[in-house]
């Protein structure tokens, strides 16, 4: 077990190192004058020179690389030319907003997608199954920006059921004292139920937008792994010995189907950790995705590069966590071999 764990960690470290290197090459070595990109189209020659000096672009590439790696290892992702702040710090401030949205989106996707997937598997080739497949295809074909826009139009402008796209809370509302960074949790911890309700109402539309799209892969995976389990010999045994259909479905079926489902949820959550640039833009959500968008608009490459590194890192960390969850669900795996879905 420890050997496996060691190997797993080693691979992760290699991947993380790879991410850092790849980002460096994308940002500095690809065609185009990095200084010119940073300075904008109308910069004077002196200004360009000054930027080259400031960012060390006049140094040879290997020297740039060593400096960059040294900084990255110590957690220094540079300074944003847009805000003048430390990129690492600015990302950390914005991360909780993205994580809260990601958490509730994935939660919604699981809560909605798992029952639909189970129903589709249990009633294979009926209209329920076909409807579930159409929903899954609709979800995986959905454009975030269009769904977000249409939901806002319908539920804010037309019906007025949910607040408009202005962020995590109304502009006039004082956010709760930071404990976890999740407004819903912090408000509850402060006993401020009204504030918690408000936080939820602002979360609703963006979380539904993302949750709907994410439910598609969950429906597909739950369906196919449930079908595999329901067709298995041990489910046939349970039925042969008089175990009721409902118990077979949930006790034998679901627990075994959970293994591939965990992988799927992990991967999806991993992708969401980096925030969703489009959804954060539409709903003015102050997370890392929106930070990346703002950086992109003014060619703030330091900030963008920091964002990319953080996204990659979080993804890798999550993957290791999932490996641990596996061994808890499936007694056959003692962190030895992975079960492929």
């Amino acid at each position, binding site marked *: 077990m420890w050997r496996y764990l060691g190997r797993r960690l080693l691979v992760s470290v290699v991947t993380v190192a790879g991410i850092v290197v790849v980002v460096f090459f*994308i940002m500095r070595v690809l*065609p185009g004058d990095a200084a010119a990109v940073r300075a904008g189209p109308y910069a004077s020659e002196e200004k360009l020179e000054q930027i080259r000096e400031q960012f060390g672009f006049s140094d040879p590439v290997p020297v740039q690389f060593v400096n960059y790696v040294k900084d990255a290892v110590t957690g220094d992702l540079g300074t944003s030319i847009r805000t003048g702040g430390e990129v690492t710090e600015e990302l950390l401030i914005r991360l909780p907003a993205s994580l809260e949205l990601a958490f509730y989106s994935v939660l919604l996707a699981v809560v909605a997608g798992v029952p639909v997937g189970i129903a589709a598997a249990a009633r294979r080739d009926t209209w329920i199954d076909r409807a579930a497949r159409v929903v899954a*295809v*609709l979800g*995986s*074909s959905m*454009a975030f*920006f269009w769904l977000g826009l249409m939901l806002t139009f319908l539920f804010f402008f037309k019906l007025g059921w949910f607040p408009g796209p202005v962020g995590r809370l109304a502009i006039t509302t004082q956010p709760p004292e930071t404990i976890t960074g999740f407004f819903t949790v912090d408000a509850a911890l402060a006993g401020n139920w009204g504030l918690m309700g408000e936080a939820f109402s602002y979360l609703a539309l963006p979380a539904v937008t993302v949750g709907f799209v994410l439910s598609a892969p969950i429906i597909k995976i739950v369906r196919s792994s449930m079908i595999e389990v329901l067709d298995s010999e041990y489910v046939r045994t349970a039925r042969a010995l008089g175990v009721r259909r409902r118990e077979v479905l949930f006790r034998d079926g679901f627990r075994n189907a959970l293994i591939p489902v965990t992988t799927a949820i992990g991967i999806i959550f991993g992708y969401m950790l980096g925030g969703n640039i*489009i959804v954060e833009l539409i709903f003015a959500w102050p997370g890392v995705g929106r930070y990346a968008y703002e950086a992109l608009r003014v060619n703030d*490459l330091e900030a963008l590069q920091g964002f990319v590194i953080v996204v990659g890192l979080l993804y890798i960390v999550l993957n290791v966590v999932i490996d641990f969850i596996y061994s808890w669900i499936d007694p056959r795996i003692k962190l030895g071999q992975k079960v492929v879905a």
Partner: protein
Amino acid sequence: MPAESQSGASERFVPPRIDGGATARSLVSRKPLAVVGMVILAVYIVLAAVGPFFVTDPVATDPPNALLAPSLEHPMGTDNFGRDVFARAVHSARLDLTLGILIAMCAMVIGSAVGVVAGYWGGAVDETLMRLTDIVLAFPGFVLALILVAVLGNSTLNVGIAVTAAFVPYFIRLTRAQALSERELEYVDGAKLAGNRSARVAFLHVLPNSLQPSLVTATLVAGWAILTVSGLAFLGVGIKPPTAEWGVMVSEGARDIDAGHWWTSFFPGGMIVLAAMAFHFIGDEFGGREA
């Protein structure tokens, strides 16, 4: 009479069989969703191929007729510059569909070639290539494409390159796995014994047999590529206004929506989703059970 005819197969009694055997069922009843996808896709392709010759100029403005609601004359209404939304959507169909299909094809060709190399030769080549795809796959495809366009600069070609790069790793993984199992099969040994060099064996024998799952994935990727391209355009990355492109149109239309002018964003966005669905229906049905 019961003759003990042991003399040969030709004289053996041939028993009668059920007429027709198992009834052949049409594609419509076996894969109804794939047929739906193909029909939608066919409509899009016709629209993209001949539509632009029949509609008005997609970029010419006509301010007096700005923001007209959908009518017979303007089936999808007009935008805030008075441009016909339907005309723009039709022109965009040509652009987005071409991009989506080309990206999927390029990603498949590049990814399959690299995947065969990794899977067939194995060893250090394989290990290196797999670590590289691990790294690339650690980023959401959209973020990767976004960064690449940001660095390469805004142009339709660069969008194509960036989105292709984001999808290549999927094909590498897929083809490598196929190649790994294919190379164990006997026909590869046979081809080698027949004196073929290993490069020839890899590309001429292993690759064609690894192709089927790649084609299914390519169909799905064409759908995702359209979503990615239009998503980038929505953010103002890559394809820019006033080009008629679905994502650009939704982005521009978003400004009108709070005044109740929903059609400028609803229709182009709907076109994106429907196009992606068409590809997904086809890919899903032919991809069998895997997610």
